[in-house]
């Protein structure tokens, strides 16, 4: 779910298409928009407090084989939540878990890792290397 929540709806749809024919899905609940109250911790590690709300969309689908998929994703994109719920339902079908993992999850995860690595590399370039005062060398 962490991978699907961060992928775009278009990226998930494109990966699902690559899986070949899929079972039919029907919507059981949603997609519907709502809120999650994000909490922080006092001092970073202490008692929880309410920081503020985040928009969230959730969806539940039932595949033709009866398996139920749930999804909650940040933002207000109903299609994103629905596609993530479909993937969740597919993943529970032991016959196609491995295929979905390989064709959908792994590439999306790699894309997210690449995005994070690019940000981390930019952050690293802004890391300060102090000069010693005596000789102005690192």
């Amino acid at each position: 779910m962490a991978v699907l929540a961060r992928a775009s709806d278009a990226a998930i749809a494109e990966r699902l298409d690559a899986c070949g024919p899929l079972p039919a899905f029907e919507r059981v609940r949603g997609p519907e928009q709502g809120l999650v109250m994000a909490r922080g911790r006092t001092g970073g590690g202490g008692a929880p407090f309410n920081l503020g709300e985040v928009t969230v969309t959730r969806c539940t689908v039932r595949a033709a084989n009866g398996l139920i998929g749930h999804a909650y994703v940040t933002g207000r994109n109903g299609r994103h939540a629905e596609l993530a719920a479909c993937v969740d339902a597919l993943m529970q079908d032991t016959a196609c878990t491995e295929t979905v993992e390989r064709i959908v999850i792994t590439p999306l995860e790699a894309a997210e890792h690449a995005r994070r690595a690019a940000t981390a590399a930019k952050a690293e370039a802004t890391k300060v290397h102090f000069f010693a005062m005596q000789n102005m060398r690192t």
Partner: protein
Amino acid sequence: MYVTVKGGEQAIDAAHAWLAEERRGDVSVPELSVAQIAEQLGRAVDRAMSEGSLYDRDLAALAIKQSQGDLIEAAFLLRAYRTTLPRFAHSLPIDTASMRAERRISAIYKDLPGGQILGPTYDYTHRLLDFTLAAGGTPPPVASAEPDGEALPRVPDILGQEGLLEPDEGSDATPGDLTREPLLFPAPRDVRLQALARGDEGFLLALGYSTQRGYGGTHPFAGEIRMGEVSVEIEPAELGFAIDIGDIVVTECQMVNQFKGSKTVPAQFTRGYGLVFGFSERKAMAMALVDRAMRAGELGEDVTAPAQDIEFVLYHSDNIEATGFTEHLKLPHYVDFQSELQNVRRMRRAAE
């Protein structure tokens, strides 16, 4: 006392139509898109989300467009919108220690583990207007470097190892929620932090500054400031286990303050805490200063300054409430004023 009056409907319609025209401005200039605001006015979006207490970059950008960049009005629009949505869940407390930090600095340890990471900061810029931005164009390429993989331990954990810093208090009790329960005094620290996190940046900045100038001074040091993405996890009832539903960007400030100690507590540093949506370093720092100032009573310090007065701070930090009461003066007070007018005339006649 307000009197119900009818009329003005046509005038209001005409005023709103003019407002819409004003908002669009000269039609020969291309219209701003919401995506442009979300991408290019990021700090305004952060502020609207923080004071609107609703994390949604696109909605905040739309609110900024609708309010012509009036950020308090934008926050008001977000607060109003949130009331139309059901609350599905609360998150598990976000773990700022595992933040994917884009910025992380400490003013108390030069060589702290993980290093000083400046990130995309305005610090060290010369505050000279950059006329190349007026001309437009592509920014210069960004430097990148291979991360060394070193972890970024929290500064309180480093200081805490020696017992020189007060530890985090650990109760996992359900925190109070200002959006559901009225504010009651004495307000506990969880409620205070919620109020500060959604409070007006200008108000908190002025109060934080006042503590530095001696009105409830706490000798603060910026122990650590970090900004970056954190995961939001919830535990939906239908699943029964925690799932990760995406990232939010937050700024955290750990302010470290002097404390003499007392009969029961040895001399140690105390802390003020700031945590806000988005990249809002000024507000996170001000919040941490005011949080610490409001702890004066519990730490046995004299409560003399405005920033230490919990009731004063919490009743005035919310800019939506403050706007409402200030701007309500625009409502018809015709009858009130007529009675005042009669009073003044009577007093004058009596004096003659």
